[in-house]
């Protein structure tokens, strides 16, 4: 089984639109939206959930007012400023609570409960491009790292049971915990970047993460025509590091047009852009196949 992950150092590089098109072009695969902080792929794929599961992660502290003697120990121990004193009583702000249990442990009155936190839901769905695994976190919930891992496991199990050879994932942006989780176990990271000052900067950061985890990298320069000079500097960077630049895609309004129609760009009547996207996918498949032989 191969796992191809499409990532970018930051959002807005067109990563999801491209993943959607690749999902259309790839055969025998499961699509997985690992961008759990801000999933968008469902807006193109319109999944119908067949299984929904609640996602619990970590714990949150809650003071039971009746038992609290107001000694204030919890407030002085909490390092996250989560315990507040309002209207003559102590209470815990769930959005600031890190779930460290320190207050629970030390409260002399045993007044603090520590229930599990319901953070979101995850789904197995059917789409016009085949099965899809995705999730939704409630606002303000962290811990997307484990949710990412859960989704990947689900995708792997599903791929196994249905005999599908590829997991195509839309990865999280950034370089934090969720990206680290989405990279683990991937064979190939397709990094979508833009020729902006931040694009190059973010590319450097995200590729060093791939290097750290020994994952093969292929680079797509999106909207390369916006700043040919910066695009060249990205190419030079990739050349120096030995990362293949597999596509230079122009800035094309057809991408937004497809999005407005809720379609992926390769489903619209053929354009130069969609032809390029097709070629790009072929290259990705070639690279992935060569990795497998090694």
């Amino acid at each position, binding site marked *: 089984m191969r796992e191809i992950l499409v990532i970018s*150092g*930051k*959002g*807005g*590089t067109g990563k*999801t639109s491209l993943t959607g098109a690749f999902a259309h072009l790839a055969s025998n695969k499961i699509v997985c939206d690992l961008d759990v*902080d*801000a999933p*968008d792929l469902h*807006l193109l794929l319109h999944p119908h959930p067949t299984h929904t599961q609640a996602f619990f992660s*970590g*714990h949150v502290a809650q003071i039971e007012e009746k038992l609290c003697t107001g000694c204030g120990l919890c407030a002085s*121990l909490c*390092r*996250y400023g989560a315990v507040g004193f309002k209207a003559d009583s102590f209470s815990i702000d769930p*959005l*600031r609570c*890190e*779930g*460290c*249990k*320190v207050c629970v*442990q*030390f409260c002399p009155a045993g007044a603090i409960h520590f229930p599990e936190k319901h953070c979101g839901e995850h789904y197995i769905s059917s789409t016009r491009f085949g099965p899809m695994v995705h999730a939704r*976190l409630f*606002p*303000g*919930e*962290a*811990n*997307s*790292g484990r949710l990412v891992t859960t989704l990947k496991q689900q995708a792997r199990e599903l791929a196994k049971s249905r005999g599908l050879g590829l997991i195509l994932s839309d990865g999280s*942006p*950034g*370089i*934090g*915990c969720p990206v*680290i989780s989405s990279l683990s176990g991937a064979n190939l990271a397709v990094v979508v970047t*833009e*020729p*902006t*000052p*931040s*694009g190059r*900067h*973010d590319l450097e*950061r995200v590729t*060093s*993460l791939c290097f*750290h985890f020994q994952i093969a990298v292929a680079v797509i320069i999106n*909207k390369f025509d*916006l*700043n040919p000079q*910066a695009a060249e500097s990205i190419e030079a960077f990739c050349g120096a590091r030995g990362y293949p630049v597999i596509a230079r895609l122009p*800035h094309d*309004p057809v991408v*937004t047009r497809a*999005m*407005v129609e*809720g379609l992926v760009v390769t489903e619209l009547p053929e354009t130069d852009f969609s032809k390029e996207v097709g070629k790009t996918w072929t290259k990705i498949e070639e690279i992935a196949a060569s990795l497998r032989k090694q």
Partner: protein
Amino acid sequence: MIVSIASGKGGTGKTTVAASLARVWERPLVAVDLDVEAPNLHLFLCPQIEETGPAWIETPIVDESKCTFCSACSDLCQFKAISMMGSLVLTFPEMCHGCGGCIAICPQKALSPGRRQLGEISRGHAGGVQFLMGRLRIGEAMSPPLMRQVKTAMNEIAGAGGLDAVIDSPPGVSCPAVNAVMDSDVIVLVTEPTPFGFHDFRLAWEAFAPFGKPMGVVINRAGIGDRQVYSFCAEKEIPVLAEAPYDRAVAEGYSQGRIIADLSPKYRHIFVSLYAKIFELASARLDKGASHA
């Protein structure tokens, strides 16, 4: 006044809006990059950095000669950062959230505070604007503790000089993003009028609305996509504070690291008017609060 520039997702132009706003801000200002995973504001503001220092988080160190292997620390730690293995206490500093629980609970005083580097905090100035930035160390998975330290530094700078703050917040609606905006006075959401943009915007609005802070919208790349953002804002009475039209010159300027407000007087005017509207938004809320009282 602290203004957070946020967006449901990266790539909406949040950073350019923050940079443009900093450019036209009339009162004394500190511009803060709280997007510590991918700080980019400096690439636009090009500040002169005067000082860069490491940021740390406290992690425990075990004195094996004092430890009696009672496992109290390991039982308390919710993050598996200190762990009893047979008759050994192992620490995994990179998993530690720095809660201090293990050190407080150890009956033998066998634990003392050590530290792990989270990243760096830099200070400087860009013209008359003070500049503050956090940058997460590569491989570091926890941004909230670094963000808290950047916010503390911001409060010191702003408090000392009576400065306003404009914060470039991390994108999204997860924990770091919520953390960034929850202590600000005004939230400005940047979005673009496309289905993705609208979807992410709506999630951000739902996440931030419970804070009850004045919130407004900047629509970037106006003219592309569809009208969903506009009808949603009308329905929820979310003021549209500014619209920056879609323009190839802007996209190119952005890709060269230029600030939109610097591109032409017309664009500068958009942000001058945004500046005024942010103050209107903040004071409208004050009036409302007063009339309720």
